[in-house]
């Protein structure tokens, strides 16, 4: 597989997995405006994923298609950040049931959107012309995603004691997963060397500034942590991705080659 194809799959998997997660709020949002907002964010992410998978299919050649890449690859094939596949709640033991927590959704969307405004901005200069075009479109969309999640982060963080405590807990839970952003994988390094990709590690200072600025306004404390760094972009995932893909892929796998 070419460096470009692998890199496109990494970006596409990120978008489709978070798009699928946000879509879980469709019909379950805390208020109707937020239900619609997250469905729209999902729509953007799934649209971005489609464009990226289409380009990956072109780069891979053969008879592969965007649908095959999204629906007929398995957990170890997916190159998304582990952060994006986690359920909408803080960590629980495996068999525990829990309601979805909107604060967790907001914190995750904020942390990821803050990264992607920087990534898409840089990728507008990609040597891959189609990727540069996708970046220019996606940048406009992710700016709105960042604005939405940032506003809610502040509203919840600087809100009631209850909302503050819950969104702080979500931040404590999710922040360690962002460590995965900062060590370039072989796929990313190859794409950077080819002039196609961007070194995410080089964006860290800007991301820190964006995050710290919002956390200060939200009266939230950035958690300190150390330990295991997740490896989703290397194909080593949490237990949650399998459940997500099973649901997302079930229709396509039950009716292969179906058209409508």
């Amino acid at each position, binding site marked *: 597989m070419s460096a470009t194809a692998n890199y496109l799959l990494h970006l596409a998997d990120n978008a489709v997995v978070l798009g699928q997660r946000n879509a879980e709020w469709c019909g379950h949002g805390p208020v109707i*405006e*937020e239900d*619609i*907002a997250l*469905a*729209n*964010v*999902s*729509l*953007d*992410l*799934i*649209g*971005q994923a*489609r*464009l990226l998978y289409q380009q990956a299919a072109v780069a891979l050649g053969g008879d592969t298609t965007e649908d095959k890449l999204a629906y007929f690859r398995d957990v170890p094939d997916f190159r998304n950040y582990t952060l994006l596949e986690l359920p909408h709640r803080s960590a629980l033991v495996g068999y525990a049931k829990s309601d979805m927590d909107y604060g967790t959704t907001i914190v995750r969307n904020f942390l990821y959107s803050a990264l992607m*405004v*920087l990534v898409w*901005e840089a990728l507008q200069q990609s040597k891959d*012309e*189609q990727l*540069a*075009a*996708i970046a*220019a*479109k*996606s*940048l*406009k*969309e992710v*700016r*709105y995603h*960042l*604005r*939405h999640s*940032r*506003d809610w982060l502040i509203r919840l963080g600087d809100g009631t004691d209850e909302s503050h405590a819950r969104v702080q807990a979500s931040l404590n839970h999710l922040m360690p997963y962002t460590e995965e952003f900062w060590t370039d994988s072989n796929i990313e390094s190859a794409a950077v060397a080819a002039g196609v990709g961007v070194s995410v590690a080089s964006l860290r200072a*800007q991301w820190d*500034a*964006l995050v710290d*600025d919002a956390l200060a306004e939200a009266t939230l404390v950035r958690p300190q942590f150390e330990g295991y760094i997740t490896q989703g972009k290397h194909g080593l995932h949490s237990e949650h991705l399998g459940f997500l893909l099973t649901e997302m892929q079930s229709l396509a796998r039950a009716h292969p080659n179906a058209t409508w």
Partner: protein
Amino acid sequence: MNTVVAPADAIQAAWAALEALADPEIPVVSLRELGILRDVRQGADGLEVVITPTYSGCPAMGQIEDDVYTTLQAVGLQAKVVTQLAPAWTTDWMTDIAKEKLRAYGIAPPGQHCAKGRETGESVLRFVRGAAEPEPAVPCPHCGSSHTVESSHFGSTACKALYKCLDCQEPFDYFKPY
């Protein structure tokens, strides 16, 4: 049909047929006025109609493609629809006539944030910080009042936000600058 029509005539005929083709979700404006219909040209295999998506996930793109085929077929033309991503669609391409039609339809038209941002090289970071400053008021398309508030960043379609007028109390859609 293409074989008997001169390419230049075919292009002109296609433009004439597509001129009034409406957007499937906002039927008061045409695809050309919205800037979705970019070009009609002679490709290697005949006529090509170039369209560009508004948002990446715009679900109307399939419908738009079908509408283009149907419209051209009705006047005896065949064409290939080509989807082009660059340059990325922007609300700045929307004509003044289209903006007025949107307003009359009850949708507040987009402002010019995008063009301004690009010209000054305004960075993403400044865009975000700027959000803390008061944004230009979006006038109510019903009564014209600037006394309006945003109910939600996201409205009935990806390209719109939901607003409410504090004077006439009517809710309305705002076509977001993009």
